[in-house]
């Protein structure tokens, strides 16, 4: 049986990634008490991932220049009087209250302001064989290599879309994995649109140049307008069928060819993790190029719910630079509200500029509707409940085409992941409406799975 535990702080921050670290370090520096809750065992989030116990990074040289910023940030964060709660799962919230589970104990954090900076998760696009062992998301590959020093295989395929394919490739090559193919579904011509977002921004320019050099050095050529059609193998992935896609992402079957691989990282961009915001009642809107449904914030990073602020990917996927800039704005807003310190206008301008640059970049990698044609009727679309595309289509045809109707008609999205994995593709696939926004997900308690014991031991708030 767990004991009830209550914490008090001026500010409760969810997520110790770039946004959460910047915000909490600044708030703590100004003398506010800050508690940061993170699911991971170390600060840094997905992008500035640290190895356990300060272990030397096997691929230290494989970190791009922007990550030096991460090192500085991690050091500053460690210096500040910020309480980091590691391995903390936030499962319920209301303004001023965050309930979380940590090491089997049930906790309540009471705070005057909530900062939501939970980041994003990988967008999965189902294709035949995507559930085979050895086929993981690009994010998962980075967790293995950069977070745990695990080398997942010898011959890798990295496929998907968006800037995060590059660190996945360099993490693998840095760890000694041969990257047999690196496939970007967007066309080179579509990517040209992103050029303004890269060239107009010094940091991004240096970053792009660094990746170009790394890929060249490792002998990896990024192929534009290609993707993975299917993965095959006996018990685990042994082969991948790859080929060209048209400008909408539709597979051109005549270009299919088979390559031998033992690990596949598929990353079709990111989806903002907005569940806590929805649980708190925050307004959301759909922006395809930002990964789907995002929380609505004002120029001060305030959500529609008083005393709840948000920064980083939860407001729309934008990357670490945007997250850090928005984290800075969050700190300014809270210091203004709680301490009467006027927020620096420059912070807001910088965040807005970073956001604009990110939007320009990511517009080139907005999800391609044609990629939904990769799945065949027999392809699993919901891996929690083993629902095939055909079953999901039958459900949509009979029960209705809303996300909820599809779920009711075939159980897709009802399992442990609660549609985090299948949700972004499910409705498009089942209802045959790849161009339309998916319905806003319905969030029910608990926001993340926690034990019965945790729910029962939750301190009343």
């Amino acid at each position, binding site marked *: 049986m767990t004991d009830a535990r209550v914490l008090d702080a001026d500010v409760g921050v969810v997520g110790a990634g770039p946004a959460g670290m910047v915000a909490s370090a600044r708030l703590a520096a100004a003398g506010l008490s800050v508690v940061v809750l993170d699911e991971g065992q170390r600060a840094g989030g997905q992008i500035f991932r640290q190895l356990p116990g300060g272990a030397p990074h096997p691929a230290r040289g494989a970190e791009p220049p922007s990550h030096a910023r991460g090192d500085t940030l991690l050091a500053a964060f460690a210096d500040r009087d910020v309480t980091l709660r590691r391995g903390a799962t936030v499962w319920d919230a209301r303004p001023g209250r965050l309930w979380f589970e940590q090491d089997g104990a049930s906790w309540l954090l009471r705070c005057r302001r909530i900062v939501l900076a939970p980041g994003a998760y990988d967008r999965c696009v189902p294709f035949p064989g995507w559930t085979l062992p050895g086929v993981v998301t690009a994010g998962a590959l980075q967790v293995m290599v950069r977070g745990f020093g695990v080398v997942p295989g010898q011959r890798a395929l990295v496929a998907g879309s968006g800037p995060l394919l590059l660190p996945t490739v360099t993490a693998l090559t840095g760890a000694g994995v041969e990257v047999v193919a690196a496939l970007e579904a967007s066309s080179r011509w579509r990517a040209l649109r992103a050029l303004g977002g890269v060239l107009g921004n010094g940091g991004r320019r240096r970053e792009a140049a660094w990746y170009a050099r790394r890929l060249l050095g490792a002998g990896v050529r990024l192929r534009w307008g290609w993707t993975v059609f299917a993965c095959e193998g006996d018990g685990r992935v042994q082969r991948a069928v790859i080929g060209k896609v048209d400008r909408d992402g539709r597979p051109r079957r005549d270009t299919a060819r088979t390559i031998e691989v033992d690990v596949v990282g598929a990353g079709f961009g990111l989806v903002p993790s907005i569940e806590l915001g929805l649980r708190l009642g925050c307004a959301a809107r759909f922006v395809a190029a930002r990964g789907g449904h995002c929380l609505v914030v004002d120029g001060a990073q305030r959500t529609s719910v008083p005393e709840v602020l948000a920064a980083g990917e939860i407001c729309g996927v934008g990357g670490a630079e945007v997250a850090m800039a928005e984290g800075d704005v969050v700190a300014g807003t809270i210091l203004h509200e709680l301490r009467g310190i006027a927020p620096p206008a420059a912070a807001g301008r910088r965040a807005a500029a970073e956001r604009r640059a990110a939007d320009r970049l990511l517009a080139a990698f907005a999800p391609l509707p044609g990629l939904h044609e990769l799945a065949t009727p027999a392809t699993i679309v919901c891996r929690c409940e083993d629902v095939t595309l055909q079953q999901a289509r039958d459900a949509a045809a009979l029960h209705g085409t809303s996300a909820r109707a599809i779920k009711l008609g075939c159980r897709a999205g009802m399992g442990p992941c609660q549609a985090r994995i299948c949700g972004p593709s499910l409705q498009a696939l089942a209802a045959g409406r790849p161009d339309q926004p998916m319905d806003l997900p319905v969030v029910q*308690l608990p926001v993340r799975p926690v034990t019965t014991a945790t729910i029962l031991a939750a301190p009343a708030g």
Partner: protein
Amino acid sequence: MVETADLVVVGGGIVGCSVVHQLARLLPNTTRIVLVDRGPIAGATSGSSMGHLMVTPDDAAAYALTIASVRLWRDLQQRRGGFHYQATGALYLADTDADVAMLPVLRDQFVARGDSAELLDARQLRDLEPGLAPDLQAATFYPGDAVVLPMLACGVMLREAQAACPGLVVRPDCAVLGFDRDGDRLAAVRTAQGTIATRTVVNATGVWAPDLAELLGQPRLPIFPRAGNLAITGHHGTPVRTQLLEVSYLRFAHGAAAVDPTRTDDRGGHAVNVQPQSNGSCLIGSTRQFRGMDRTLNRELLHRSLLRAQRYAPGLAAAPIVRTWVGLRPYAIDKQPLIGPWPPVPGLWIAAGHEGLGITLGPITGRLLAQQIAGVPCDVDPTPYLPARFCA
């Protein structure tokens, strides 16, 4: 051009789907039936329910109705399947001396109906379910209960109906806005997707049945929403294979409610129902509370149900809960479902008010109503369920 139909069934829950399912088998295959629902098929009470097929032995008529319906469920499973039917049986458990004394009484009730049930001692109980709390001394095991996934079952029924009756149209997200009358008789249903001319309408809208009656200018039917909180665990393997019920469940769920359903200060009650699912997750219920159409979670009642479930199956303490939700049971004031014609409006039929037995009774309800509409003899005497009992 106005769409025409021989029948319009309003409500795409298990009752409406079953009505259509049975009508399609009884009426000529040229019959044009339209099923409409304001939301998705199985989107309200049916989609929120536990899917327990429960045979109730405490009353002869209730036993006849539930056993007949559970047999129809078994037939559907054998004929079609596809809705995760599991013959879990039911293990009735007791925690107080008074409830322990009920265990043999319950067994005797099943036996008196010509059915079978077993009284298990502590050792037999341990052999059957090693995951139960070690201090439990006795239980009654009834093998006839089962578990289904109601929302998938709705789909199976509708697909079978469509195969038998090509004129069946299923229209989700199509709310009924009003009715046109031709004198006493019904003339048309006005929906969000247009008007359907018809002389026959079935009100199978569960907790909304009183609203639909009102739309027809009729008095509100005495059906009241009774909320239940539910939780489901992850796929980590259930601590039990048999469905668990507290023996007090029967009087709690199907006995007279201790409170007036029109009151708003009902604090609610609880009796354990733990249901292993085919995918390794476990449903934990059940609570009951009258509080109108409010579907927000009642944390206190949820906590009570989780605590009590753990008391019987301690392994649940460590089980991750992935989701909780609230469903509304349509509670009829005299605790009997309404199945039959509504005499003041010729052509209007009702199938609603099943409280927590809607999934169990779905098939027999559809059958009794379809048999009445088709003018053929009923499988079970429908008299106790005729809605006319509420006609002034």
